[in-house]
């Protein structure tokens, strides 16, 4: 049985752990609110951008003239996976989930004889993938110094992707990130960036779409050219959205896991305290018995 002193030390150490997890939970809650707001405020832009692309692409005379970013390179031999993870740990299964999905995908693609390249955004994913797939990683960005994600962080990522595509370094690009569904649930999302997946007609009507009263848009410059400018821009918007979603999801995941940790620590303290009191009482009883039997012996 552990001595009283040992128990006291353990209780003290669990209590201080609990203090830390509690503080982390509160910090995450505060950050979550901000991240959620940012994600919501970015929505109008993405929505309208998508509406424009659908409208322009829908009016193209034929898809042959569309820029390669839209129709792809006509092959699917080389896959680029963009892996968006957190910069820090202690957020439950947040990073593990993404990495598991990515590893499964890599295995699948390799079995099908495709070549895989990885673009890591976020240190956690890079650190983990580096161990067994270093040769596949072509790019790595860390957002460690970034406090608030702005569009300026997303742009270079998108530009790099376009540049690599133009240089023929990959045929299909898919992005993996945690989408923020609710505070307790984050969904691993797989999104194809290149070639662009155009939403099918009739898919959930956009309530912001204006009523044209039968009129058709005029395009300036021509459709193909306009699409050529819109699509790279859309790539940055999608990357930006993924970063924001991931940031909000990370804070939510951290908040939940730290809440659990705090509760666990509480339970542990209760158990240890009970144990401590029992041990203490047992010692007192033993001492009393010793005194009483000593007195009787006289």
């Amino acid at each position: 049985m552990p001595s009283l002193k040992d128990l006291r030390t353990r209780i003290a150490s669990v209590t201080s752990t609990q203090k830390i997890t509690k503080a982390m939970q509160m910090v995450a809650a505060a950050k979550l609110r901000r991240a959620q707001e940012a994600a919501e405020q970015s929505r109008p832009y993405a929505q309208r951008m998508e509406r424009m692309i659908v409208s322009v692409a829908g009016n193209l005379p034929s898809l042959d003239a569309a820029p390669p970013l839209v129709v792809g390179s006509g092959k699917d031999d080389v896959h680029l996976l963009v892996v968006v993870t957190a910069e820090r740990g202690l957020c439950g299964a947040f990073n593990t989930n993404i990495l598991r999905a990515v590893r499964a995908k890599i295995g699948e693609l390799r079995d099908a004889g495709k070549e895989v390249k990885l673009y890591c955004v976020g240190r956690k994913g890079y650190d983990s993938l580096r161990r067994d797939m270093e040769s596949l990683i072509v790019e790595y960005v860390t957002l460690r110094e970034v406090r608030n994600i702005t569009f300026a962080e997303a742009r270079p990522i998108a530009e790099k992707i376009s540049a690599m595509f133009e240089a023929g370094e990959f045929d299909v690009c898919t992005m993996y990130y945690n989408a923020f569904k609710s505070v307790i649930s984050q969904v691993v999302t797989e999104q194809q960036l290149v070639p662009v997946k155009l939403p099918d007609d009739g898919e959930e009507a956009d309530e912001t779409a204006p009523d044209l009263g039968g009129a058709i848009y005029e395009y300036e410059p021509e459709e193909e050219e306009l699409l050529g400018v819109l699509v790279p821009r859309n790539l940055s918007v999608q990357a930006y959205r993924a970063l924001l979603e991931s940031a909000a999801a990370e804070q939510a995941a951290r908040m939940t896991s730290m809440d659990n940790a705090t509760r666990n620590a509480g339970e542990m303290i209760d158990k240890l305290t009970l144990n401590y009191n029992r041990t203490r009482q047992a010692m007192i009883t033993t001492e009393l018995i010793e005194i009483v039997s000593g007195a009787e012996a006289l």
Partner: protein
Amino acid sequence: MADKLAFELVSPDRLLLSVEADAVAMPGMEGDFGVLPGHAPVISALRAGVIEVEGGGDGPDRVFIAGGFAEVAADRLTVLAEDAIPVADMDRADLEQRVQDAREDLEDAEDDEQRRLAEGKLALLQEMLAAVR
């Protein structure tokens, strides 16, 4: 037909401006154009320049954008811009300094990639400076 135009200026970060305006003039990729209520539906790319809003109430009446897209439909005008700064918030001396810096960057550029970047930046800054004048 409405006699006002619902004008929205959206950046990736947020909805910057949402006002009822009489008229809006924009720097289109193929020439500047103005939009009045009842304009025919158009989707156009925009180059760097100044958007001028007339009768927009409290909002800023001149906004500089670094390029973007405009969608006109049914008395609504939506502008998607990556960078948008009200002209009134721009400081001329500061801009001149930045143009100077950009020129130096261009001179110091070591390869084509850097030169291209620096040229783009310089052109943008000169547009901004022109907007302040």
